[in-house]
């Protein structure tokens, strides 16, 4: 999205923090943002209002901040670039774990989409960043599997096109949320095993239970109850399905 390029580096840092916080709790309290970025609450409010004007967040004083669809798209993109870069710095350049974050923060703003894709391929579709083991968000290119991305290596990103819906990992879904399987990260054997169990592209799933301590997730898929270990579940990405046809306020496609 071209609008993404208009954001300042500083604004992108805010988006990253918002992404991380909003997967845990929504709306995000502005005080949390100010502690994480180590800036004054006043400047947080100032920036949030700016982002609201651009249409990236919804903000109501005393309640907090929620990313809009457009905002989530940009926030997950910049987070993805950041975490991919961390992996690259750590795995390929052998830079120490505690150094990669700051370095990646500098580099993420200038990484093009094609470079992002090439990096992901080079690193063999990594799923976690090295320092805090956070999940690397899925790419926004129109692929359903990593294999497809590899096969269409010749095509550039703008030829491939981008997804029009935001995707979210099953591990970021809440209990009782429903989704449509849209992307599975990993080699073909994982995908195949998942498909044998009914998790095919476009299949509808519902989260029944999430075990604590990074335990497995219980899903309902094609009428069967399936437990997926966290390591597998985190690489299955869905488009959240809302049952109410009129989306209530704050109901977003990213969960």
């Amino acid at each position, binding site marked *: 999205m071209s609008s993404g390029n208009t954001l300042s580096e500083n604004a992108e840092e805010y988006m990253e923090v918002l992404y991380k916080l909003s997967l845990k709790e929504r709306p995000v309290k502005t005080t949390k943002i100010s502690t994480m970025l180590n800036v004054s609450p006043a400047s947080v409010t100032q920036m949030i209002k700016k982002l609201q004007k651009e249409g990236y967040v919804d903000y109501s004083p005393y309640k907090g901040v929620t990313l809009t669809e457009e905002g989530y798209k940009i926030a997950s993109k910049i987070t993805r670039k950041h975490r991919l870069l961390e992996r690259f710095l750590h795995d390929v350049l052998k830079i120490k774990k505690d150094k990669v974050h700051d370095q990646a923060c500098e580099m993420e703003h200038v990484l093009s989409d094609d470079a992002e894709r090439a990096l992901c391929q080079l690193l*063999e*579709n*990594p*799923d976690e960043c090295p320092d805090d083991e956070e999940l690397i968000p899925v790419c926004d290119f*129109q692929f*359903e*599997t990593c*294999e*497809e991305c590899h*096969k269409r290596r010749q095509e550039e990103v703008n030829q491939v096109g981008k997804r029009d819906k935001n995707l979210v990992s099953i591990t970021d879904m809440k209990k009782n949320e429903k989704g449509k399987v849209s992307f599975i*990260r*990993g*080699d*073909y*054997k*994982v*995908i*195949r*095993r*998942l*498909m*044998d*169990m*009914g998790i*095919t*592209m*476009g*299949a509808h799933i519902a989260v029944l*239970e*999430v*075990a*604590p*301590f*990074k*335990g*497995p997730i*219980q899903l309902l*898929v*094609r*009428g*069967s*109850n*399936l*437990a*997926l*270990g*966290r*390591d*597998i579940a985190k*690489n299955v990405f869905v488009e959240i399905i809302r049952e109410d046809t009129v989306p209530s306020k704050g109901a977003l496609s990213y969960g």
Partner: protein
Amino acid sequence: MVKLPECIEKSEYEKTISSVTQEVKIEPGDITIALAGNANVGKSVIFNNLTGSEQVVGNWPGKTVDLAEGTFHYNGQKLHIIDLPGIYSFSTFSMEEIVSREYIAHEKPEVVINVLDGSVLERNLFFTLQLMEMGVPLVVCVNQMDIARQKGFHIDTEKLEKALGVPVVPTVAIHGEGLQKLVEKAIDVAQTRKVVEVPVGYGGEVERVVKQLEEFLDNEGLDLGYSNRWVAIKLLENDPEINKQVESISERAIQYSTYLALELEKIHDEPSFSIIASERYALASRIAAGAQKQDKYKPTLSEKLDKILIHPLFGYFTSALVILGLLIWTFVLGNFLSEIITEAMSFFQPVDAVLSGPVIAVLWNGAFGGFVAGVTLIVPFVIPFYILLSYIENSGLLTRVAFMMDSFMQKIGLHGKALIPLILGYGCSVPAIDSTKILETRRERLLAAFAITFAPCSARTIIILSLVAIFVSIWWALALYVLDIIIIFIMGKLALKAMPGESTGLIMEMHALRLPSTSNILKQTWNRTKSLIYLVFPVFIAGSALIQVLYVLGVLGPISNFMAPLTVGWLLLPSFAGILLIVGVVRKEFVLLTLVSFVGTDLSLALTPVQFIVLALIGMLYIPCLSTISILIREFGLKAASVISAANLITAFIVGGIAAHLLSFIL
């Protein structure tokens, strides 16, 4: 990124090509029925119901997959029945899948009964469609109709029959409902050998491409033993093994299939195997939707129970309860039975210090000792274990516990299901190692088995209790237990380092909870026990006789003296400890019994508190007992068994020595 390890090595795969050796004799005119279907759909219940006691459970040649065969008569017709392992697909990612696929293709059973779980019709039909692709004579059995009804599903089997084009029989196997009709239909199909192709084709391009490739293969004169339609589909799915097999015959077929697969991928923008899986599921979904109606949804008892069993908080309590229950059951019942048996056989002394005379008498004494050891292992500990394990397994409780415990098990490189073998290890290592079969890969089975060899089994518990708890204090006994758990964890971590590899990750179906049938449980228990008896008794009897002879011949003394630098020098134990340790290899309790025969019942006269603790520690860790070693060899081969035993031995002497030297300052 999680990668699935290669479960099957090439050599292992090639072994499967060789045909299955039949343990049950088949005469011309007999009918062979294979039961196939997903895991936990009730295949074994049907199998047990039909065959009664006439069954053999063994392993598929060269593999750790159970092979259950049986015979029965119906209207004068002799029928053989094979219970294939429960699988979800034929993609050759597990031994079970290979075994089933090879069996159906090469042994060509007269009829395959595909057992479905009526409450999960769509997912089960996915496998039915694959069986139909293989072109086998098929009867579909929709089992667990009662659970389906509870979930509010009304399944119209006639509609299903029409949609699939093969006979469909509804059953509730656990009550024997519908089984007679099932057998009649199976015999019908077996006699006509009618093969029905997939009734409704797949979507436009997929069907066209499959047909094109199938014709091409026909023209090439390819015959792998499978139907060419199935081979065509597998080639398009890029199945590695089928690819390899076809490549050796016809390079052109591979080229053509690659070309067609690319064509498909261009249209659908998905890998070809994904397109085909989606097509198959779309078809399964259509057939299921046409044949079943669901009432207004109301939660079943099973779903209500699940609210507690896998609740983020209560789930841990219930899981702990199940684990504790299993432990208490085994300990209390095991010790109770063990005492009775030991009492009954109290006239017997494992190593009789004064025994001399003809070699026969000595041998007899030793062999009888082995027999006693076997009985005191199997009756009190193994059988009660297997019974309760079967209950926990078949009721579906096991999957709930595995679900809750997955994150902890990940820490030693295993997933939730591995918890079960480990818990079993607290009772007896032998069935525990046997039950590592529930894990997917050899690496995971080996990791689990390794951890199990350190678990304080009931025999070790006896040593700890009777040496330390009685003669030192119960707190030191408890401390040893805690130390053991720490050692398991450390060794588990070390093993993980030594055997790096990707963990499989948990993908597990959670079936509706149900009350298992008792007769099924008992049969399962008996079959499991039987296979252990064949393993354990010969080893015990021969091993014990040998040690007795060596002892009488006076060979043990010198060996013990030879070990003295280690036992006396490093471990600070009395010199006869060497003999105890040698005897204890057969069965750990022998350490204790022999000690009693040496110094009388008041052991405190012969040993200091530190020596008690060190001896218990060594006895606990130093080597798996003979039966454990033999099951390790059976499951993992001689090399792995030796490495594990050596690791045990080294750990024991390091930990024991450190304890001996440190504790002398404290006690």
